[in-house]
């Protein structure tokens, strides 16, 4: 049981909108794209899921449990968030050694993940000298350190060159094929369309669609995305779209 389930999740930051009554599931064994324009509430949702932000109401569960209640959370869930950072003066291997101790894996695992993200040759360098793409790989290495069944990645393609993108795509597909739950937020739709099986689309804090990619109909992902995240037809408060599985959301 490693599915992610979000139920009636609401988070308000003072008067600012966070997310409103969000409900969706993320199945295991597939790559799920978490899409929405900037400010749609993607990052807020992921942060609640990871126990970094307290929801106003509702819940986000991993295998039926809250993140904070997991015994060794990093063994279950690997996360890469935009706000994840590195001390510029610290060497990459040291960064991972620190995480290995609290993740609960032997130090030998550090070299394995460095190999996996193709950073083994740069492990002794200080992270301050890393390119954006290398930092992103190091972030992925951190997420993979605990060999987790669930991966939560916020914009993992940021800073990757085309070869890196292709590499990431292969990695995500492979991880999902192993039965893991992979949730990837992104705004690069063309990239997502080639990678994901399942999509969750949010807009202005509300769910617009949750279901298989091919449930979006015949138009391209980009067309569907623009349709679902365009101006809301009934701003006076029409009911938010429910996760309809295969049902396309807005009027066509």
């Amino acid at each position, binding site marked *: 049981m490693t599915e992610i389930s979000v139920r009636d999740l609401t988070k308000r930051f003072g008067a600012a909108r966070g997310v409103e009554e969000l409900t969706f599931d993320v199945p295991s064994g597939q790559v799920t794209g978490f899409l929405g324009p900037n400010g749609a509430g993607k990052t807020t949702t992921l942060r609640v899921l990871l126990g970094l932000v307290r929801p106003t109401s509702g819940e986000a569960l991993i295998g039926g449990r809250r993140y904070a209640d997991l015994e060794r959370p990093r063994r279950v869930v690997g*996360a890469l968030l935009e*706000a*994840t950072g590195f001390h510029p003066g610290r060497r990459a291997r040291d960064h991972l050694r*620190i995480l290995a101790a609290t993740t609960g894996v032997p130090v030998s695992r550090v070299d394995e993940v460095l190999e996996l993200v193709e950073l083994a040759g740069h492990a002794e360098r200080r992270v301050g000298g890393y390119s954006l793409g290398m930092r992103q790989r190091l972030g992925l290495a951190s997420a993979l350190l605990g060999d987790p069944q669930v991966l939560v990645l916020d914009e993992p393609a940021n800073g990757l060159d085309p070869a890196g993108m292709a590499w990431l795509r292969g990695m995500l597909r492979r991880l999902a094929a192993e039965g893991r739950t992979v949730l990837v937020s992104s705004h690069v739709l063309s990239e997502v369309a080639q990678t994901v099986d399942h999509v969750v689309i949010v807009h202005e804090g509300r769910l617009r669609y949750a279901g298989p990619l091919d449930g979006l109909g015949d138009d391209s992902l980009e067309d569907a995305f623009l349709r679902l995240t365009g101006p809301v037809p009934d701003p006076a408060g029409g009911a938010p779209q429910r996760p309809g599985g295969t049902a396309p959301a807005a009027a066509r």
Partner: protein
Amino acid sequence: MPTLIANELLKLRTTRAPWLLAAGGPLLTLLGVTGLFASGADTGKADTATRAVAHAGMVSLLALVLGILAVAGEYRHKTITDTYLATPRRARVVAAKLVVYTGLGALLGVACAAVALPATAVGYAAKGASLDWGDTGVWRTLAGGVVWNAAFAAIGVGVGALVRNLAGAVSVALAWIALVEGLVGQLVGGFARWLPFAGGRAVGNLAPDAGDLLPQWGAAAVLVGYAAAFAAAAVSTTVRRDIT
């Protein structure tokens, strides 16, 4: 908890700032003691040795900055996200940092004492006098310096956890010591001796002639109280706060 403590030590060892601060402390102590004798300290006066070794306590300003780095430094570099992802019980992270940095502050105090004492002996010898090694005032001053360093490191952890912005936390702490406490002290009169920097100076026997300081033991208790209060405030806000 042992894992978290070992982890904090590993974090410290793998960056350069703690090493620089640790090296700076004894160096500043040496400078201070040497300067006192170079500017013509009178070895005939009873309190000269105490004044010389009291420089070990002044290094507590570095201990304070070191403590601030513990939490605010993690916010600065956004490593706090990974830290709390690995240990969602954030209170335990803050507790581990308090243990490690208090110990480190004490260690810094010991290192500076180990420099201050021989430097003072050399200062006396250079003036043809000899340091009285049985002077209890000297030993109490050195012990007080260790306590001052440990307490200020712990207070720094609390300040960093409360303010989180590294530059802000360091500015607030140093401004308090250099400026604000003096201004507040004028307003509150006799209560001024209970303020943190006055407490530190009393513990470290800095300016022992000043009659308006607390006795050393009382001041040590006050510092421990401040450290505990900051720790409690740090833990309670850290547990509830959203990490964005």
